[in-house]
C-alpha cells in the first residue's frame, strides 16, 4: 500500500499495571479521515502522545511516509510534517494570532531560526501566514491577542498553526470539544476541506462529527483496538455497541 502516510505497528505502553496501549496497529491513508473513538480512559491521549513523540512506547514502531520515526523527538517529527492539534490549549496568551501562525511558517521554512532580522520583516512568510489564517477564517482577528479570542477561535488557530507545517499528516485531539453547535458545524466543514491536503487522524468524542467526517473508524477500549471499519460497519458492530456506543445510537 503506497498511499499509507502514517502507521503504527504493535505499539504498546503500560503505566504500572495499566495497559494504556496494547498492540495498537493502525494506519492513515492519503486523503482520508480516520477517526479514533472510545470511552474516557481508553488510552486515546496516550496513543496520540506516542504517535507524536511525547510518550515513548514500550514496544512497537511509528512510521511516517515509510520512515521509522519511533526514536525521534516531538520536534523532529513535526519537522517531517507530522502536525497536531491539542485538546488542552497550548497557545501563548500574550501573543497575537498572527505571531503564532508566523512562527509556524518561519520554523517550517527554516528550522534554524534567524536571530537578527525582525520576524515581521520576512514578507513572504507573513504572506503565507495570512493565507493560512484566511483559510481557517481568522483573517479578521489576525492582530488580536490569544487571550481575547473566543474558545472556537482558539480551536481554529490551533488548526491554522498545524497547517503552517505543510503537514503530511494531521493528528487532531478532540477538535470539537467545548464547541457549540455553530462552532462544531464550522469545524466539521473545515476538516472536511482539509482532508485532501493532509489525511487526518481524528480523535473525537462528538459522534455527529465523527459520523459526518470519517472515512474509517477505529474503536479503542482499554488500550486495544476492538474494531475498525467504515462508518456503517462500526455502527452495526455488536461488540462496539456493547463496549461503547450502546445507547448513543
Amino acid at each position: 500500500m503506497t498511499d499509507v502516510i502514517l502507521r503504527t505497528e504493535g505499539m504498546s505502553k503500560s503505566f504500572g499495571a495499566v495497559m494504556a496501549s496494547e498492540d495498537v496497529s493502525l494506519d492513515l491513508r492519503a486523503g482520508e479521515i480516520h477517526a479514533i473513538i472510545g470511552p474516557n480512559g481508553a488510552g486515546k491521549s496516550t496513543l496520540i502522545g506516542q504517535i507524536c513523540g511525547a510518550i515513548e512506547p514500550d514496544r512497537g514502531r511509528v512510521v511516517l511516509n515509510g520512515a521509522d520515526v519511533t526514536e525521534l523527538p516531538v520536534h523532529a517529527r513535526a519537522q517531517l510534517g507530522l502536525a497536531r492539534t491539542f485538546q488542552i490549549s497550548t497557545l501563548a496568551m500574550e501573543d497575537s494570532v498572527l505571531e503564532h501562525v508566523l512562527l509556524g511558517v518561519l520554523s517550517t521554512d527554516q528550522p534554524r531560526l534567524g536571530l537578527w532580522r525582525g520576524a515581521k520583516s520576512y514578507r513572504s512568510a507573513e504572506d503565507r501566514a495570512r493565507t493560512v489564517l484566511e483559510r481557517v477564517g481568522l483573517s479578521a482577528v489576525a492582530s488580536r491577542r490569544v487571550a481575547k479570542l473566543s474558545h472556537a477561535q482558539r480551536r481554529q488557530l490551533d488548526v491554522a498553526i498545524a497547517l503552517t507545517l505543510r503537514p503530511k499528516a494531521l493528528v487532531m485531539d478532540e477538535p470539537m470539544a467545548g464547541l457549540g453547535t455553530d462552532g462544531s458545524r464550522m469545524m466539521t466543514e473545515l476538516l472536511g476541506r482539509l482532508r485532501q491536503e493532509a489525511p487526518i487522524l481524528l480523535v473525537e468524542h462528538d459522534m455527529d462529527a465523527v459520523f459526518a467526517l470519517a472515512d474509517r473508524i477505529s474503536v479503542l477500549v482499554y488500550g486495544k483496538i476492538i474494531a475498525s471499519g467504515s462508518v456503517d460497519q462500526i455502527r452495526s458492530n455488536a461488540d462496539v455497541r456493547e463496549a461503547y456506543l450502546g445507547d448513543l445510537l
Partner: protein
Amino acid sequence: MISEKLLNGALIAGLLLVVLHAHLTDAPFTITLATKVAILAVAGVGLNIALGLGGLVSLGHAAFFGIGGYAMGILASHAQSYVPLMQSPVLIEGTKSMPVIWLVALLASALAALLIGALSLRTSGVYFIMITLAFAQMFYYFAISWPAYGGEDGLSIYVRNGFPGLNTLDPIQYFLVCFGVLVLALLVSFRLRTSPFGLALNAARQSTARVQAIGQNPFRLRLTAFVISGAITGLAGALFADLNRFVSPTMFSWQTSGEIMVFVILGGVGRVMGPLAGAALFILLEHLLGGVSDYWHIYLGALLLGVVLFARGGLVGVLTEGRSGDD
C-alpha cells in the same frame, strides 16, 4: 503616564546628560558612577535575555560576570609581569588590549554558559535556580582556592587596559567605551527579541509543547539564549574589572548573581531598557542611601520586597503603567 519608547529615550538621554554635566563641572567620580551604571546595565541586559525572554531564572550569572573579570585579570596580569600564560606548545602572552580581552571574555563565558546550560537545562523550575546558583558557587570556591591568580585576595592591575585610539584613563573616554558596549548590547537584545528566534523563545517560555509542535527543540532554543546571555554578562564582567582595575572572587559570589537579578527586576523583567533603569536606580540608591546609613541594604531589601509584592512591572512598568513595548 508616558510611553515606553519615550521613557527609553529619556533614560539614555538622562545618562548622557549626567555625564556631560559631570564632565563640564569636572566631577570624575560622577562619571565613574555613570560608567558603573552602564556596565551593570550590560550585565543586566545579558541576564534579561535568559530571564525575561527565555523565562530561565538563573541565579548563577555571577559565574559569567566573574569569568569575564578574570579573563581581563589574567591576561592583563601576564602582560604587566611579562610572563607568558603558556610557552608550549604555542606561546600565549598576556595582553593589555581591550578588544582582545573582550573577545576572550566573550568566548570563555560563552563556553562556560554552554556547559552550565547544557547540564542545568536538563531540569527546570526550582531545580534550575538551585543548580545555576550552585555552579556559580563552584567558580567562587575555585577562584578562592586557586593561588596562581591571587586566591582570596584577587588580582590588581596597575594601569587600565588600552583601546586603540582612545585614552581609557580619562574617565569620560572610558565611559564612552562602556556606553558604546551598552548600546550594542541593547541592540543585540532588541534584535533578538523581535527575531524569529525571539518569537520562538518567547513562545517556549509560555508553552513548551507549542514550540515542539511546530518543529522547534525547546532545549536548543533555551541553550542558545543562555549562551548569548552568559556571553554578554561575561563581557560586562571584563568591563567592570577594568573600571576597578581589580578582580576578586567576589565577582563570582552569590550576592553578585542576586544583584544582577535585582537590576533586571527593579527595572522591569523582559523590558529592553529594564536593566538600565534598574542599574541606574540601584547605583543611585547605593549612593544616596549609602551616604545616609551604613545599613542601606535594609532599605534596598524593603524596596525590592515592595516591588515584588506590589509592583511587578518594575520601574519601567510603574512609569508606563504596564504598557508593553509592542503596543
